[in-house]
């Protein structure tokens, strides 16, 4: 830990992020997590290929990566960003159509996540800010929270029909109630000192919420969002399989219906990579925008 300038903090948060590490030691530190990710993946793929080679895994049911990644154009045919009906071959066939399909799914997840984050934050703040509103709505939120997003699918289709809105709605539902409850718990755990100091310096209730409580809870709330990200991905795939008719979920369902094991695993690979990249992107936002860590916040995540 002797390398790096004195100014650079070891965990690399805050404005010092702009100071790019220039020496080999720092580069190694940055590359290390990537190497571990690759090793982790290689171990899994290796075990699978080994199982195939020994004849334990039936290539028709559990085709190993070298089979389902062998003929990419063959797989690409099934991806149609415009949303073909299940089982049919659409306009797909190029890498662009695959990216298009991923893009649509990612867009639905992102929209749902943003809506969920903003509205749950607003609800949580309102529940604590307006006493009567809080007393009226908190029991309802607590009762709705345990209902699985899957149970909301019929509701989503009844209300929004087929298309993007039900998928976005389901992602939203998957995180909204949990995140509202998380917001409340975070508000209740803002250090008393923070609020008392604001009172002494003449803050009104509104100013305390705006200048103290909101910034105090944002980083930890964002961590909660990241934890719920994978849940949102699972839900969007189900929603696409049932209520949208396009996207990665629809391709997976089509592969299941046509007994195309290679396509199933190829799509699963895409889902895994995309989900991983999403998590990385959220981490980046967290580090750049919400770098501060207060007492009691999950700073290690």
């Amino acid at each position, binding site marked *: 830990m002797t390398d790096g300038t004195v100014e650079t903090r070891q965990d690399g948060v805050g404005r010092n992020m702009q100071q790019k590490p220039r020496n080999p030691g720092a580069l190694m530190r940055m590359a290390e997590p990537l190497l571990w990710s690759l090793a982790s993946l290689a171990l899994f793929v290796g075990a699978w290929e080994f199982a195939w080679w020994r004849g334990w895994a039936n290539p028709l049911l559990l085709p190993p990566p070298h089979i389902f990644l062998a003929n990419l154009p063959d797989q690409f045919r099934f991806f149609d960003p415009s949303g073909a009906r299940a089982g049919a071959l659409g306009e797909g066939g190029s890498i662009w159509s695959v990216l298009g399909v991923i893009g649509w799914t990612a867009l639905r997840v992102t929209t749902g996540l943003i809506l969920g984050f903003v509205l749950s934050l607003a609800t949580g703040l309102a529940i604590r800010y307006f006493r009567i509103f809080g007393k009226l709505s908190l029991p309802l939120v607590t009762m709705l929270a345990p209902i699985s997003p899957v149970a909301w699918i019929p509701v989503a289709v009844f209300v929004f029909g087929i298309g993007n809105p039900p998928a976005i709605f389901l992602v939203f539902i998957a995180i909204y109630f949990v995140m509202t409850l998380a917001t409340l718990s975070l508000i209740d755990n803002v250090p008393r000192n*923070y609020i008392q100091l604001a009172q*002494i*310096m*003449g803050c009104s209730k509104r100013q305390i919420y705006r200048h103290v409580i909101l*910034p105090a809870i944002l980083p930890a709330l964002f961590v909660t969002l990241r934890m719920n990200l994978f849940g949102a991905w699972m839900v969007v795939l189900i929603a696409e399989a049932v209520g949208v008719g396009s996207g990665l979920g629809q391709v997976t369902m089509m592969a299941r219906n046509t007994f195309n094991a290679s396509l199933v695993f190829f799509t699963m690979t895409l889902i895994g990579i995309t989900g991983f990249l999403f998590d990385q992107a959220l981490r980046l936002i967290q580090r750049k925008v919400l770098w501060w860590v207060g007492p009691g916040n999950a700073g290690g995540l």
Partner: protein
Amino acid sequence: MLGLSIKNVSKIWNADGLNPVPAVSNLTLDVAPGEFVVLLGPSGCGKSSLLYIVAGLEKATSGSASFDGIEITEPSPDRGLIFQEASLYPWLSVRDNVTFGLKIAGHTPVKRAEAAERLLKLVGLANSGDKRPHELSGGMRQRAALARALAMRPRVLLMDEPFAALDIQTRARMQQHLLDIWESSKASILLVTHSIDEALALADRIVVFTSRPGRIKAEITLDMPRPRDLRSPEMIDFARRCEALLAEEVEKAFKEQELA
């Protein structure tokens, strides 16, 4: 009358509940403008409770506290508070922390920048304005908290064991620093501590508390100039007196805990 006036104040925590805890009992104390008063007592004797009542953050169960003749009912920038932990806001730079109260009060950015420069220089953090609180040492954080309180030009500074979390060398420097600032600011200081040395180094008047519920056991007036040599025979004498007074109370508190 001017200054801080505490009259027959009692504080009972959880007064309506099953286990009421008396913290302060029928306490009367005046702090003159510009006076440096140290509340000395065993842990949990209600000194901090009294400080919170004076700050306006807690209500007395009975009795009243007033400042310049006006009863204290809510917190005010006139009565700055400094906690044991600096409690700087981690999302603000040191400079923005120091001028947070000025921003709330509606001062312009230009005025705030001027104030920040003056205050940071005053507490010896002139080069740390752009840093984040977590980049400062414990002593620097506490100095920033002091600057933040001073920004509001308080008439009285309430300090709740402000140096307890610091190492002994930093502590001594911070005490000297506080004395310098106190002399230039003309504010009264009401400081809570359980360190006899700290009380002797700082106070015009030491108010020794009894164990819970807190009452005034003794008042010791120190009129020697500062900085004081705590190893002089005179100061050692004072230290012995304080020690004897505190020892009685600690003993009492232990006995009570054994009975309970």
